[in-house]
């Protein structure tokens, strides 16, 4: 691997990490989960939320289920 590739990989890994920590990958995780649970041919799959619906649903769930932040 040359330096450019290495730098590219480093940048990709950093972006992945930052997105993960900030919680940006939540929708991707939700979709992946949904797909793995309802593979084709295993009956009618429940509708998958769109990205906009998902994020609304997420903050609305936080409304009723608050997460503590430490001191």
């Amino acid at each position, binding site marked *: 691997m040359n330096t450019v590739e290495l730098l590219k990989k480093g940048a990709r890994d950093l972006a992945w990490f930052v*997105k993960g920590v*900030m919680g940006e990958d939540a*929708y991707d995780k939700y979709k*992946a989960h949904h797909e793995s649970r309802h593979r084709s041919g295993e009956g009618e799959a429940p509708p998958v939320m769109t990205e*906009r619906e998902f994020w609304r649903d997420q903050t609305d769930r*936080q409304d009723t289920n*608050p997460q503590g932040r*430490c*001191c």
Partner: protein
Amino acid sequence: MGTRPRTPHESTEGAGTLDRDPALLAVALDQSTHDAEEAHWTPAKIALWGGISLLGGLSWVMLAVVRGETVNAIWFVFAAVCTYLIGYRFYSNYIQKHLLKPDDRRATPAEYKADGKDYAATDRRVLFGHHFAAIAGAGPLVGPVLAAQMGYLPGTIWIIVGVVLAGAVQDYLVLFFSMRRGGRSLGQMARDELGKVGGTAALIATLAIMVIIVAILALVVVNALAASPWGVFSVSMTIPIALLMGCYLRFFRPGKVTEVSIIGFILLLAAIIGGGMISSTEWGAAFFHVDPLPLAIGIIIYGFVAAILPVWLLLAPRDYLSTFMKIGTIGMLAIAIVIVRPEISVPAFSEFTANGGPVVSGSLFPFLFVTIACGALSGFHALIASGTTPKLIEKERQTRFIGYGGMLMESFVAIMALVAAVSIDRGIYFAMNSSAALTGGTVQGAVTFVNSLGLTGVNLTPDMLTQTAKDVGEATIVSRSGGAPTLSVGLAHIMQQVAGGKGMMAFWYHFAIMFEALFILTAVDAGTRVARFMLQDSLGNFFPKFKNTSWRTGAWLTTGIMVLAWGAVLIMGVTDPLGGINTLFPLFGIANQLLAAIALAVCMAIVAKRGMFKYLWIVAMPLAFAAVVTISASFLKIFSTIPAVGYFAQNRAFSGALAAGETSFGTAKTVAAMEAVVRNTMVQGILSVLFVVLAIIVMVTAIQATWRSWKGRDFGTNEDPAVPSQMFAPSGFLPTPAEKELGASWDAQARLEKSAKSNR
């Protein structure tokens, strides 16, 4: 939840159900493989750990034995990091191997309860960052600053040794036990393990402790912003910035969290720079100059509104911003300390170790251990470690890296805060942290007071105070107690040597103030929300209507009650003639440590129930220490006859003076102020009694539960039933060779499946 019987010393019940699925690759390495890898000491490995031990040992010698005229800050970093590495590699491994015995063949809640939302397997490195951002806040930044009064060594030893033997153990155990119980909360675990009495006491204690912690965090912000037009402007700008970010995420680009955080961060920098410009204009300085009391009332109103607004509008976006700032600033400070390596001239032990001083009243034991709570042992973490994190863990063995390792990181933050605090001039330190009651709030008063302390090597001049105030863009730095301003001066002092020079000091100072205020405000409104739900849940037992959390009136009512509770304590601290933070901070530390004692007591009962008496000491030792420290500190606060230490002694002194018809007493110059002291000390005294009584009830019920397990050999567990796992992931930050090998075959299989799917 019934208790299912099982035999002691067995790592998993119903091991048969966890037998390997023949159609699947191995989901876990055998214990023997782990043991073999550990026992395999290559020369390189021996050299590495030998080197770490030597460097750590040398650093401790430099800090504790050599103690020259000055000591370089780099030794703090080496002593801490080497001790953490050794503690992590050996002690947490010992706990894993003998006490917790994680079993990677078992699925974690993230796997067997997976819903793609609350329960979702998360990469261990990401989850580590996540967990760290949730546990680290203002606590580890403030406590060490105040404890710097006693010299650098007591705080350093307690932060580093305390975390390895107590704080990180607590976090690790609570995380593990909660994970085995589907992510149940500390309160629920207390009810399961300790019964109704212990469980109820734990719940009330948690609620009361949350109130006091929120109040004192808010007090830190008030003290940092009062009479600082620059700070008031830039911190209040965070509200419109957060609202803007919230709307951006809601209506414009949902889910673009990093993008909106970067936008928010740039606006934040603009707010800091703008604050400097505005505070230098005449109208700006007048308009944004707010006294402590109106500021406190403003924060109380803000707290109420923020807690009833929808999460997406204010809390969620500010939380993103605060996570972004937190990880960024802490990383930046770590690098700066290594680059600058400040020389520290504070003595190892100061003149105030025996009898306390102007910043912290009382002797080193027990008050050092309650002044520094977060960073060494923090009970509040038990609420986080039994909340979100256990629902996201991929594999059982990862709890060590995330629970134990995450707390080591927080401890390192505390060490950096200590370094920042001891790197500034001692005279300035005491001028900033002694209450206005002692300094009179004036430069001349502060100089006279600090020089009268008779500290070796301290010769404060009025010029030093005015110059520092000018450098950081404040009107004055005298009696800016609460820890945050001192830390910010220290951070500005270090950062300006890396970037910007003296001219940038004001920017860095206000950057640091902003960084602390941001996550304190997040903690205030998240804490209010959590407390409101706890209160609603408890009230629901008597008035079922309260259980319905979407009932508007009930929500507003319970939010109002919680805000009034912490607001009252905040107002008390702000108006206290004795100086506020000095009298209230011990209560914060005691409360936090009592919560730790409660969490450890629950863990002890669980360990006893698992029948693992041989290793009970791992929990019993930190529990005993926390119990001794907090109970003796509480007793001193309740029974001490020295007014500066005992709340009731102070109360008697002032009410005696009032009865004698005096119109001024000590630092209280009016009858009204004297009456305020009488009122405040009574409230503080009653709170101390309440905390210690509740904690003792919890500890006694835990000891009873432990004794029952021992006496009756009545073992069992409240764990969820074991479910076989169907996935594999390494356990530590870096995979071991055997884990790498197994991981590679999983990757290969995943690739095969993928290509088979696309060929179909």
